Structure formats: C-alpha cells, structure tokens
C-alpha cells in the first residue's frame, strides 16, 4: 500500500512538474499583466516599473529559473494584483472550496446511491423512469441559468434563503443545491447502470436462492460490487468540484478557488494561477489516493 502511494506520489509529482512548466509558459503567452494592472492611460515608464518590480522584464527562462528556485523554498511568489503571497490567497479561497466540494459530493453520493439502486431494482418501472428523467433534465440545464432562477424563486420570491454570500449555513443551501444537480444526474445514472449489471451477477442469484430479503439484497450484496465502477465517476466529479465551481462561485459571491482562478487568469495574475493549480492538483492527488484506498476497502481482490 505504502509502495503504491509512493509510486503514485512520484508519478503525480512528475505530472505536477509538467503542469507547472506548461502553465508557466503558456500563461505568459497571454499578454502583459502590467497593461491590465495599470489604467489605460498609464505611462510606459509606469508599466516598466511594474514589470521591474515583479521581475517580468527578465528573460522568460530566467523568470522560470527564479520561480522554480523560490518554489523549492516553498515560496509561490507574490500575487501581482493583491500584493500578498500567492499561496495565502489560494489557501484562503481553498478553505471555502473544500467544504463546499465535500458537502456537495457527500450529498451527491448518498442520494445518488440510494435513488440509483432503487431505480435499478425497479428497472423500467415508474420510479426508474422518474429518477432518470429528473436527473437528466437537471443535468442538462446550464447551471448559471438554474442558479439565477433559483435566486429569483427561493430568495426573492419565497424568501427562504439568502440570495448569495457566505456566513450562515443557510447561505450554503443554494450554492450546494445548484452544484449538486449535475454530478447527481451523472452519478445516479452510473449507479443505476452499474447496479443493473451487478443485480444480474451470479452471486445475486445465490443470495436469492438463500432467501435474502430485497433490501439487504440490494444494499448489502449488490451495492458493494456495484460501487466499483461508480467510484471512478465519483472521483471525476469530485475532481471537478475540487477544481472550484466557477459559475456557482461567481453568481453566489462564494469566495472559492474557482472564482479566484478565473479572475487571476483574466487579470494575468500568474503566480496566483500557478499556486491555485498546484494546490488543486495536490488536493486531487490526495483524493485519488483516497479513491484507490476505497477500491481496496470495497474489493478484497484488489487489496490482496
């Protein structure tokens, strides 16, 4: 196990390095941050000063060497726009993204598993069709559209929840609900499909021959097997959430890493972009390890 994690860590480190190099140079193709930081009528001298202050006037390769050198000292550089260490900015945002992603994913997993399994057991029936259609429609609507309609209906119309922002638990309801829809739609479909084939497996026949009741048949005998393909999809969806939810964060004024990322990209705040990418990559790496562990936990054949 430790060996596996070690190998994964090395492989991921390589990917991370590749990612960093790619992002570093590609982002610098996208223009001059000085132009965006300073007002349109700023003088060339001011722009020059800004570049010099942030080392942007150096040859690209030297900038890169400096960046890597600093990185080796766990220094992710300063945010060009916020005049603060980029890593602080990112971690602050990540402290919002992480619980949002975890809560959403937790809800997605539990509801999708229960509803998807029941739908599979009742394949072709009314409940199955209902779950399918509702999840499909939900997953096919543009999320910003849902978000704005949700605000109009639930905050202004009904006044149940605040429109946006963070603070009380009530503030989290709408962002989580909107974020929930798409992964739920996907995962519930996969659960249903996977449970469908798992319910056809020979060991289910054995269980039926043993006289096992329906609920344990679904949720004890079949689910653990049916979860294996689901975990991969859950991993993909969780990874997407860990990358930050740009749209939802933008609309609900949720100070997560997705909004930070898009703002930093648009403003060419290179250090923040790089730091954000690396932090999310580490988070996703940890999650992948957890997924692997989950596989082992669920399936003894992988463990041994």
């Amino acid at each position, binding site marked *: 196990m430790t060996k596996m994690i070690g190998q994964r860590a090395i492989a991921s480190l390589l990917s991370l390095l590749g990612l960093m190099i790619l992002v570093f140079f590609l982002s610098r193709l996208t223009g001059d941050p000085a132009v965006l930081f300073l007002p349109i009528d700023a003088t060339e001298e001011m722009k020059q000063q800004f570049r010099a202050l942030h080392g942007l006037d150096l040859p690209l390769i030297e900038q890169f060497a400096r960046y890597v050198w600093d990185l080796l000292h766990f220094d992710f550089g300063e945010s060009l726009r916020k005049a603060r260490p980029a890593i602080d900015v990112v971690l602050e945002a990540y402290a919002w993204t992480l619980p949002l992603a975890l809560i959403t994913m937790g809800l997605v997993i539990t509801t999708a598993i229960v509803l998807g399994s029941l739908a599979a057991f009742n394949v072709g029936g009314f409940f199955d069709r209902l779950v399918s259609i509702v999840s499909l429609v939900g997953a096919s609507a543009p999320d910003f559209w849902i978000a704005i309609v949700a605000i109009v209906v639930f905050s202004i119309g009904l006044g149940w929840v605040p429109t946006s922002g963070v603070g009380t638990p009530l503030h989290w309801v709408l962002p989580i609900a909107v974020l929930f829809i798409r992964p739920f739609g996907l995962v519930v479909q996969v659960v249903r499909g996977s449970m469908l084939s798992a319910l056809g497996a020979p060991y289910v026949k*054995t269980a039926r021959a043993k*006289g096992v009741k329906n609920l*344990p048949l679904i949720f004890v005998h079949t689910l653990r097997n049916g979860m294996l393909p689901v975990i991969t999809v859950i991993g993909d969806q969780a990874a997407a959430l860990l990358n930050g939810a740009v749209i939802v964060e933008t609309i609900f004024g949720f100070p997560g890493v997705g909004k930070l990322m898009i703002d930093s990209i648009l403003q060419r705040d290179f250090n923040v972009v790089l730091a954000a990418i690396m932090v999310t990559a580490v988070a996703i790496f940890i999650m992948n390890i957890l997924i692997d562990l989950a596989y082992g936990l669920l399936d003894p054949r992988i463990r041994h």
Partner: protein
Amino acid sequence: MSEPLLSVKNLSVDFHTARGTVHAVKNVSWSISRGETLAILGESGSGKSVSANAVMNLLDIPPAEIVSGEIIYEGKDLLKVDYETHRALNGKKIAMIFQDPLGHLNPVYTVGWQIVEMMTAHGRPADMARARALELIKRVGIPEPEKAMGKYPHQFSGGQRQRLMIAMALMLKPDILIADEPTTALDVTIQAEVLALLKELQAETGMALVLITHDLGVVAEIADRVVVMNKGEIVEAGLTREVYHNPKHAYTRKLIDAAPGKGEIKLLDPAAPLLLDAKKLNKTYGSFAALKDVSLTLARGQSLAVVGESGSGKSTLARTLLRLEEADSGEALWKGRDLITMGRSELLGVRRQIQMVFQDPTQSLNPRMSVYQLIAEGWDIHKLMPDKSKRRAKVIELLEQVGLSAEHVDRYPHQFSGGQRQRIAIARALALEPELIICDEAVSALDVSIQAQVIALLDDLRQRLGISFLFIAHDLGVVRDFADTVIVMKSGEIVERGPTAQIFEAPQHPYTQRLLAANLDPDPDVQAERRASLTHG
C-alpha cells in the same frame, strides 16, 4: 416409494424475445423423495435448469413466463405462494448450489460472512450461525476453518469454493439440495471428491438431491434416477442403470453412444518425419514455475495429446510454442529452426504453418466479423490468394470441409451454435494450410454429441491432409479417442509419456493412475465397481 417431497407437474415456461417466443420447457414433470438423488441430464439449450430455477423462484419474469404447471412442496403450490413465503423457503427448506462457485460467491464478502448469512437471513442468531458455519466448513474438509471464515472467495481453489458453497447450502439442513452442474468446471480428481462429499452429506442428512448435469459420468456416479431432457421436453425418465443399459428414446441412445473413450486406440506411424523438437523449455511467472524442462517431439501426421489438470502448465506449453509467451530458456526446433529465438519476419512465415484452435469459440472468434472475414483474414495477413474473386469459393470449400455450407458465409459468430463456431475456428485454421494445429481444450466446452463430431472431423483432417496435432485436454476419454501419443503433465513437469495404449492400459506414474481412476465412466455399473474397489482397497 413414499409420498414425494417435491413434485413438478406439467411445467411449461416460455421466454419472450423479439424474434418470437421460445418454449424453454414444455410439460415437464418430475418429483423427488427424501434421501433420493435425481439427475436431470441434458445438453446446453435442453432446458434442464429451468424447472429448478422455477422451484427457487429465480426465473427473470419477464422475459420468462410460466405458462402452466404447478410445483408442489408440502402441499403448497410454490408457483402460487406470495413472494415472502417463497423467500422464507429458499435456503431454509430448499437450497441450491451452482456451477462456477467463484461467480456465485459474492467476491467482496468473506466466505464466513456469506455462510453465516444463510442463517441470519432466516432470523437465527449470529453466534449460533457462526458455530454451525465452523462446524460445516470443517465437515466439508476445508483446512483451518477459523481462518477460512475470514478469507474471500478468490483466496480458495475451485474445489474448495464448491465445498464452501455446499457448506452454505447445508446451514439450515434443507430438505432438498439442488445442484446445478456443481462439478463442471472442476478437474476430474476434484470432481470425484466433491461428488463423494455430496453423497456422504446426503447420507448423513437424508436430504433429497437434485443434480442438473450434462455429464453421463456424473449421473452414473451419483444418481438413483435420471430424467433426460432434450429441447425443453423430458424424453426419458427412469432408474439410472435401466436408462443406461436400455435406453428407449433415440436421443438417449445418441447421447450414450457419443460418450468418449470407447473407440479404437490409434498407433503412431514410426516412419513419419520429425516436425517439432522442443528441448528443456522453461517458463516462470515470478516465483511460480509453469514449465520445468519440458521436452517433446512431434512428427508429421502425429496427434500428440498433453494431459493434465488446471495449473499443470499444459496451456503455457502451447502458448510458449506459439510465441504468445516468451520462454525463459530452452529451444523448440521447427523443421530445424528455433521458434523461441526466431526473428519477426521469419516468425510470420512460421505462423502460417502452425495454427491454433482455442477452447472457447465464442471468445476466439471476433464477434464483429462475418464468417467470410474471419476465414479470409489469414490470407490478408499473409498476402495469399490475391485474386479476391476466388476467395469466396475457397471459403465455401473450407466451410464444406468442416461440415458447414455456403449459406453460412455472411453470418456472424453469434448466429451459430457452439459446435458450429468451433467448426468455423477450425476452418479458419485450415485456410492457411497449416502443418500443425495446436488445439487448446478445443472440444471441452462442447456438448458430448458435438464433441464426438468435432473429434471425428479433426481425425479426418489428420488422415486426409497429414496435419499434425498438439492436443491439449483434460478429458481423458477424448484423448483416448484422438491421440496416438500422450504426455501427462503435473505442476509444469512431464510425469509420464508414451503411446496412448500404454498410458491408458498400463499407467506407470501414480498421478496418471489417479487421473484415470477419477475419470468417470458413463456406465453406472462400472462406476459402482470402481467405488467398491476404492472403498475396499
């Protein structure tokens, strides 16, 4: 005979498909009494499992539909009781074990948990269930029962898994045990052990045993009575001995006649030129030695059988000779050239001369290619028959050679039966006019009647075209009918070799002797004799 414990009366079940309704079983009736063993014998597609599944409420409805009939147990019609009542009977009164215990045991739970669940699912306390489970695991002969409880299905051997299934089925001392092909995937020696175990347990508990099988040998070994099924109908029923010795129905006769191991033993032509000379082949996977210093020779027109149980290395031998695996050491001279070290381009030429027929034609034929494409592919690869207009005629010729006809040319594998598919695979091998065909369990997946036909076909090809065969098999009867020389392998080593007659009539090595002893004879009297000699000896 006392009042039957369970009787199936006039059961008819249909399967609905887009192409129409298939009558899976028609008016099937059988019954069984306490302490009795009934065998339901039939080939694939005969509907032999359907009635048992109906008893257990395991039919998928739809596509299945029970058209008529009743299943009487303890005075109740099981087809009419509600779901909950039926569920409570399953496992408790009527238990079932299956072929392929690996698939039928839940891979993600320990066997202990699964065995215990048989009792807890029926409301018994867990500690009691655990004690009973330990007792039974010990009874069915699993070493270290405590430890075994905590292990997962994949950590056991095939025979052990079936023993565990049996233990699970017996947890609640059921009245009836239904065993659906319980020994089919097992090696002969293991099969004998499992059948013996079933018999012992039956004697201990007095339960009734319904055994569903395609194997006459199994019937001969264990059954008191037999019903023979063909195409959904019972064609014959009666005491096992009577049915074997005095079959009334033509199908039963055909089945008995097709049983292998009764033909004339072939002799090797000593003058045939040497084709393949393999010396000291070795192959290891990690620390496991699959081949240990294996040497063999094969002459033109010879049919050499390699016999052994699973894990003996016989398949690895074939794969190594075909360069599907790289040997660690040794050489294999094909007409004087070493196959093991041969370069790519030379190998391509040799590949034409050595063809292979695999065990399962369903898997060895690409499901997305038509028969024509399958057979003609070799010509594309080896740039033969450049005149494409002639190919079709040649394909038809080949099909006719293996007993198929021109109308089959554009069909796809799934539209054929198992035996027909294996013929297609043979036609594909013949298309390249090979000098050696390696058959890896080429007939073991086939029904006996078809098995006999395919063996006859291969033998015909050997004689007419002078093709050599390396014939890998675990079924001794088939080997006896086909091979002129036999090699017996065990744990990667050759333990005995010699002409077929010598191996079968005067085996030297104890392992060979054991193999032959475990091989079931379709004649119940022969089997009874053997059993008697074993108990006394």
